[in-house]
């Protein structure tokens, strides 16, 4: 009993902190209450729920050799120290998602987002990562598509693979859109990000020929270069010659990114991708750690309301009510389907013992949720007036300080034009109006926190651009790596119809698949960039729906496997989050398709515009008939995409039910684990 006492105390502290966060109204709550509430809930969940799943649901067996033991080859399959592997896994799962979603969700206040992140991760997100890791670990570290094929059949596997490819396309488009939003009209930011290309190439040459393999050394040199780029970026931005040369409109940036994506993804990996990945990975980990320390030192009060009037819908940042849209807006951080691809990727090949799985699978996801909590805190310590000025589309608040101040004040968040101008000046930007996408808002918050700890107000502009650089850097790495991964997924898919397409010796299929992949995400990026409502409004919900659907698919796989293991009575562990995700995504998808509100439903929006077009009217924000037609076309494409995601998830649901019913009819376990003796060590 005594061993439970510290945990009971932790639980009590968590409950108190959560109560303070939930019931305080009127006076400012300190951000540390949220941090303490989250940390205590996570610790208790890890100690009890993860252990329960490990012991009773999965029945992990530490004596059973993992793929890293039986197939040890010193390269892909290596039994790895668990803290080292935890770092590897965390670095692979944590990206821009947990930083952006919570910032966007802050329009409903900090409370709904905080509660969803905490409960979502404990009951859904961490369970998903953990069970996929478990399933893959028992099957030679096979990937999600192969696992679904093994347990639910060929057709289900192919549908899931296709779904994963479409999700990848949407993710790349959304990530690229965030970069566009952050760098448009910002010569300082653009220069520092552009500087990373030659810098990474120099690092690539260094690790290739001068000092091969010296990752630490070259990363330190690279970091010095990055800091220099940020420092000199200010002078560049102010120069009458170079300033304009690095100032781009969103549409120009969109084409630059598309060009960049197609070139970067066919360059040799050592030249650009690998060295930039070193920089972005270490910078990401460093910045996350610094943010955590900064929040604890500064202990800032939350200035956002606990709950704003936008919970009913009609928010300026994204449309739709709390249910179901909050639960798809915060995807990564609470539950992220994409992690199923990571948990069935390199990690299961490196895990040394089944006993390590709770820490890696469940624990690393809790850590990511903690990052999401910090992002939410960041958005919530800003003046809400600043938050809504930065995140509302120009169509609503105009483009100058006076109109923005009037519009945001009218929303109920008083702000003066001077404060808007001053904030932009403090962070060294021309304007902060309508910089949706999450990254700029978070960068202002990070500048606030970091400058409080190091350098004071004079350093704000430096820290702002540091934060933008850190986000842009790993997003660009993801765009590059994602395009390559998407290309192989596409090649596998096309090869199902045209077997010769998998031929690796010829360059032609690779080039075609790369071009198709870039064209696919480029299409959605262009659509987002030219969207008068800011793009994030349209694309982020589609991304959220797709990501949560992948999570539902992964959890359905988990359910099917539990049934096939004859662990039916524990299947609620995955059924509960599956049901919730299906309810959220299916209703969100349904609303996105058929809601009569043109702000929410794609088809209603298309109908409104096509009715106007038939009457020869041009509706704002379109300026010409051609733009009207493009808006209608985009709406229909988005609707088709959402319908496609719905079809994918419903068909996997069908296969899951079928698999579970079949498993119930047979008395013995039917799960197709790969037994230890089958595959001897190499």
């Amino acid at each position, binding site marked *: 009993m005594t061993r439970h006492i510290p945990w009971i105390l932790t639980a009590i502290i968590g409950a108190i902190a959560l109560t303070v966060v939930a019931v305080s109204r009127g006076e400012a709550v300190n951000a540390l209450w949220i941090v303490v509430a989250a940390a205590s809930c996570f610790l208790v969940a890890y100690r009890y729920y993860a252990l329960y799943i490990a012991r009773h649901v999965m029945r992990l067996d530490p004596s059973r050799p993992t793929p890293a033991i039986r197939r040890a080859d010193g390269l892909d399959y290596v039994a790895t120290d668990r803290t080292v592997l935890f770092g590897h896994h965390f670095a692979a799962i944590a*990206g821009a998602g947990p930083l952006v979603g919570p910032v966007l969700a802050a329009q409903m206040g900090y409370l709904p987002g905080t509660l969803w992140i905490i409960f979502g991760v404990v009951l859904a997100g961490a369970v998903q990562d953990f069970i996929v890791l478990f399933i893959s670990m028992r099957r030679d570290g096979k990937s999600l598509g192969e696992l679904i094929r093994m347990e639910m059949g060929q057709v289900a596997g192919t549908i899931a693979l296709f779904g994963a490819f479409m999700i990848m396309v949407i993710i790349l488009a959304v990530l690229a859109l965030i970069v566009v939003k952050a760098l448009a009209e910002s010569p300082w930011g653009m220069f520092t990000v552009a500087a990373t290309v030659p810098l990474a190439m120099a690092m690539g040459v260094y690790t290739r020929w001068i000092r091969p393999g010296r990752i630490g050394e070259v990363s330190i040199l690279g970091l010095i270069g990055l800091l220099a780029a940020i420092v000199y970026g200010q002078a560049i931005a102010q120069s009458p010659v170079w300033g304009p040369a690095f100032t781009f409109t969103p549409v120009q940036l969109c084409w630059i990114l598309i060009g960049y994506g197609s070139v970067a993804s066919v360059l040799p990996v050592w030249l650009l991708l690998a060295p930039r990945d070193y920089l972005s990975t270490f910078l990401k980990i460093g910045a996350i750690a610094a943010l955590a320390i900064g929040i604890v030192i500064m202990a800032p009060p939350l200035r956002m309301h606990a709950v704003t009037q936008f919970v009913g819908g009609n928010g300026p940042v994204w449309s739709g009510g709390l249910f179901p849209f909050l639960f798809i807006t915060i995807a990564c951080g609470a539950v992220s389907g994409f992690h199923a*691809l990571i948990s069935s990727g390199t990690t299961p090949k490196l895990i040394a013992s089944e006993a390590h799985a709770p820490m890696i699978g469940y624990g690393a996801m809790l850590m990511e949720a903690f990052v999401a909590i910090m992002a939410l805190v960041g958005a919530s310590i800003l003046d809400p007036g600043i938050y809504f000025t930065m995140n509302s589309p120009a169509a609503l608040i105009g483009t100058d300080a006076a109109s923005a101040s009037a519009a945001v004040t009218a929303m109920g968040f008083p702000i003066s034009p001077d404060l808007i101008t001053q904030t932009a000046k403090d962070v060294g930007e021309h304007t902060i109006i309508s910089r949706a996408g999450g990254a700029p808002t978070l960068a202002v918050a990070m500048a606030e926190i970091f400058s409080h700890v190091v350098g004071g107000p004079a350093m704000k502009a430096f820290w702002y651009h540091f934060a933008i650089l850190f986000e842009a850097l790993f997003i660009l790495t*993801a765009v590059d*790596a994602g395009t390559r991964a998407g290309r192989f997924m596409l090649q596998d898919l096309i090869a199902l119809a045209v077997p010769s397409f998998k031929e690796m010796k010829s360059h032609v299929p690779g080039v075609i698949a790369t071009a198709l992949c870039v064209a696919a995400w480029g299409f959605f990026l262009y659509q987002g960039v030219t969207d008068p409502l800011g793009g994030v409004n349209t694309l982020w919900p589609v991304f959220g729906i797709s990501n949560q659907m992948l999570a539902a698919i992964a959890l359905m796989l988990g359910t099917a496997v539990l049934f096939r293991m004859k662990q039916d009575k524990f299947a609620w562990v995955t059924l509960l989050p599956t049901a919730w995700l299906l309810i959220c995504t299916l209703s969100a998808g349904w609303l996105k398709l058929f809601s009569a509100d043109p702000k929410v439903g794609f088809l209603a929006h298309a109908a409104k515009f096509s009715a106007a077009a038939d009457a020869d009217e041009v509706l704002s924000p379109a300026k010409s008939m051609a733009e009207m037609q493009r808006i209608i076309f985009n709406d229909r494409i988005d609707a088709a995409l959402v319908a496609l995601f719905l079809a994918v998830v419903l068909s996997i649901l069908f296969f899951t039910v079928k698999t579970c019913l079949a498993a119930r009819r047979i008395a013995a376990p039917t799960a197709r684990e790969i037994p230890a003796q089958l595959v001897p060590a190499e």
Partner: protein
Amino acid sequence: MSGLFDTLRRTARLMVGMPDYDAYLRHMAAHHPDQPAMNRTQFFRDRQEARYGGKNGGRCC
């Protein structure tokens, strides 16, 4: 102290997909003493290609 530093170093390297070279050498010595092992540079290039070549390129959002 050097143990902690070593763990940090290995963690940082594995974060970017670089497994431990010494562990690879130990594996080769124990299981394939007859085959030549890659040298440090070859090992680095091989692992770099394996991580970024595309098949494992899935990076999270």
